[in-house]
């Protein structure tokens, strides 16, 4: 009985005593540049269960204590077994002594004769080993202070699929994926020229995210490139999980609603931009490539513009710019005309609008604001729901906003038409970011139109124009080639797209090293 009581007491006491454990050590900043040390690596990583240290001995002239460090799940086990462990432990096990294997000769011997892996190199920094292991490579430690980094990355990935947000009727169907190396290979397949540069960097103190900066050396402006590297090097952040983190950290004016960095899911778009002298940034773990510098007119362009015939593209671009105009100004013009400038309307239309608004209890501005707000809620709700439910929301929204609200005299029929037109026009813009910016700017313009009519719209538009003129993307004025005026670029590839046979010289939208050639010359 006494022993039972004692046991119970022990258990009770133990459950109340906080277990004091030493936290696993964190790599300090100095660790990354320190010389290699197997013990330190093991100290830093052995607390994680997914990290495997496969220790073995190579028996040569000297016995060498080896250890292969990998992250389970990030490596291709076949590479590890067939090209590292098997040759060392089975195929050449008996010949190591004859080969004069010692602690000093081991790295070179393995590199040149024993391990038939295609990516293999010597490393001497602790940081290189840590990065290698944690990025999915294998590190073979040969004793305490020397090691080989062996490319053995291999994990489950989505593969190359059709891009979801940038589908096209004509053109390639492949999209970028979450795996960096697949993305670089997709770009390399399109530009098979030695001038294509693919430079790797790491960003994020904790995530150590791999990013790739890619450009064509003979085209990309050195100033832009240096500025980009400068901005990337200044980033101090714990983690980069998506390209959006970088976008906000490197853009010129983060408080602007307008994007100053463009992005794409399509490798053909990346390649086309590189051919214009731009620079792409790929982030591991995201199927998006950021592209800099960018000008506003480029947000109105899609890849198909270059696959279709020029005349069709001219018409389609006109429709898109008309879409921007309508999305930005349709509700404001309606409010201004109905509140202040009736004289602009023909009598029949003015009477029809007045009749429609007769029983509506709120002023036109409030009516428009309610409708636009309801539309925004519907859009946001529809965006996140599973597809079948999204359609339901669309139908319910259309019925409630369209029919029921008009019958209940909450809004006038013409307002439904205006808001519907505005919504459709918003989707005519190829860039989601610009569409959001336009949606944001639309509301203050409506308020200005409701308070000051066309003068208010004028104030809003001129303020917007001044803001856009102040914007730059890596030094390139945002409204180029309209201001500063670049006639050739304006006529070749802005509001219109000249036929390929007329594109003798590269459109001078941004600063490039080689602006005079390009196109089909």
């Amino acid at each position, binding site marked *: 009985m006494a022993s039972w009581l004692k046991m119970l007491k022990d258990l009770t006491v133990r459950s109340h005593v906080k277990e004091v454990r030493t936290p696993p050590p964190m790599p300090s900043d100095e660790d990354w540049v320190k010389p290699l040390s197997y013990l330190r690596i093991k100290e830093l990583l052995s607390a994680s269960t997914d990290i495997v240290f496969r220790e073995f001995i190579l028996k040569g002239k000297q016995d060498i204590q080896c250890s292969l460090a990998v992250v389970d799940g990030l490596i291709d086990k076949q590479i590890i077994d067939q090209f590292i462990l098997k040759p060392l432990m089975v195929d050449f096990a008996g010949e190591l002594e004859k080969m004069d294997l010692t602690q000093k000769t081991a790295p070179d011997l393995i590199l040149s004769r024993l391990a038939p892996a295609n990516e293999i190199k010597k490393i001497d920094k602790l940081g290189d080993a840590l990065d290698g292991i944690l990025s999915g490579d294998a590190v073979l430690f040969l004793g305490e202070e020397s090691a080989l980094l062996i490319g053995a990355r291999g994990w489950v990935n989505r593969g190359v699929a059709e891009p979801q947000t940038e589908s096209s009727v004509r053109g390639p169907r492949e999209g970028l994926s979450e795996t960096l190396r697949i993305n670089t290979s997709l770009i390399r397949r399109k530009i098979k020229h030695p001038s294509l540069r693919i430079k790797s960097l790491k960003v994020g103190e904790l995530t150590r995210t791999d990013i790739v900066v890619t450009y064509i050396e003979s085209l990309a402006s050195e100033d832009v490139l240096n500025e980009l590297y400068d901005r990337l090097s200044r980033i101090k952040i714990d983690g980069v999980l998506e390209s959006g983190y970088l976008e906000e950290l490197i853009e010129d004016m983060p408080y602007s609603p307008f994007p100053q960095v463009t992005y794409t899911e399509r490798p053909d778009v990346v390649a086309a931009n590189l051919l214009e002298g731009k620079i792409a940034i790929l982030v591991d773990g995201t199927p998006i490539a950021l592209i800099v510098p960018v000008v506003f007119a480029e947000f109105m362009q899609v890849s198909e513009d270059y696959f279709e015939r020029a005349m069709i593209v001219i018409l389609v671009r006109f429709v898109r710019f008309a879409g921007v105009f309508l999305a930005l100004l349709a509700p404001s013009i309606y409010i201004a005309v109905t509140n*202040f*400038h009736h*004289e*602009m*309307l*023909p009598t029949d239309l003015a009477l029809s609008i007045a009749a429609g608004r007769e029983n509506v209890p709120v002023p036109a501005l409030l009516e428009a604001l309610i409708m636009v707000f309801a539309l925004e809620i519907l859009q946001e709700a529809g965006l996140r729901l599973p597809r079948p439910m999204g359609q339901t929301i669309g139908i319910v929204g259309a019925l409630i906003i369209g029919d029921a609200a008009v019958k209940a005299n909450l809004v006038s029929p013409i307002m439904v038409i205006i808001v519907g037109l505005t919504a459709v026009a918003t989707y005519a813009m190829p860039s989601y970011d610009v569409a959001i910016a336009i949606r944001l700017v639309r509301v203050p313009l409506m308020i200005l139109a409701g308070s*000051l*009519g*066309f*003068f208010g*719209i*004028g*104030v809003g*538009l*001129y*303020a917007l*124009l*001044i*803001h856009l*003129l*102040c914007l730059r993307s890596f030094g390139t*004025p945002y*409204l180029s080639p*309209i*201001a*500063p*005026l670049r006639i050739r670029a304006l006529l070749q590839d802005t509001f219109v797209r000249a036929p390929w046979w007329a594109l003798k010289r590269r459109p001078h939208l941004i600063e490039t090293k080689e602006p005079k050639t390009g196109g089909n010359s």
Partner: protein
Amino acid sequence: MERISVHQFMIVSASMALGITFFPIAQTVTKEAGRDGWWCVLPGFLAVLPFALMILSLFKRFPGKNLIEISDNIIGKWSAKGIGLVYISVSTLFGSHLLALVGDTFKRTVMPLIPDMVFIGSMLILVVMLVWAGIEVYGRFTEIVFPIVFLSLILTMLFSIPRFEWDQFYPVLANGIKPLAFGVLKVTSYGMQYILFLAGVLSFLPREQENQKRFKTEIQRALILVGMLNTLVVLIQIMVFGPDETKRLNFGLLTLGRMIEIGETISGIESLFMMFWMGAMIIRISGLFFMVLWGLRSVFGIKDELKWYLILAGVFYLVGSLASGPKFARTLDLIALYVNLPFASLWVLTVWGIAYWKQKGVQG
């Protein structure tokens, strides 16, 4: 240091020379020369050209300096400071009166119930935004806005063609040439505002030698373009309203806009055009705001700090508010004719003359 390109210089020159002269010019010249008033416009603007060329020749010798700084070198520190003070005062007075005119124009034409202060305040916010953004952004702003203003003027004139009364054109020169001279003088007083702007903007022009010839060409182009455009503005008002009605109408161009009908669908589009012409007002007032700042920098050596912009905006607002009333539009004309014209012409002639004489002396 910011710079504007040669093309931007041409557009800025045209925008500043045009300003909002298209509003009062028809009334001004028909008061002097009746139905022949349109003859005065182009010569009036071209009369400004020699002064512009003199300033450019000084810029060639003193690259990177504005005319106040050049005056400092040529006629001495204290004289230059005195000239700088007049430059600042004239620009402030003209700019703030122009602001008041903008408020008055909107109030009398399209928005009668809104107080003047709202127009003046809104315009001033835009002007400060633009000027704070710098001369490069200003140059780019004019590159976009000037063609729109130009096009809207051309459209107004084109849509007015059906209302032409061709007999208003005749008889030509019935009152002789003498009245034309007064008309030319008045138009030149408008153009002289551009000369004062040119005196300040010099330091932002590209200094390369190869651009010197292009500056001259671009100024000629700008003045001819503005002269021809304003000639058409006057001619069309005379043809539609006749000389007597043109003399009477304060905002003849807006009345033209009100009369426009496009296929019985859209009418009375003057409020729409006012929105475009607002751009011309912003350019002109911003130009004057810049001039005051350049003057303050040259005379007092102030730094590029936001507080100076805000203080100056306050001064513009205050003077603009006080300038309301029926007489201020006339005050604007008086400033142009009796202050701008003699000040700008005497200043440029004196500095250029002394510089030329000194150079001759050195060579001789």
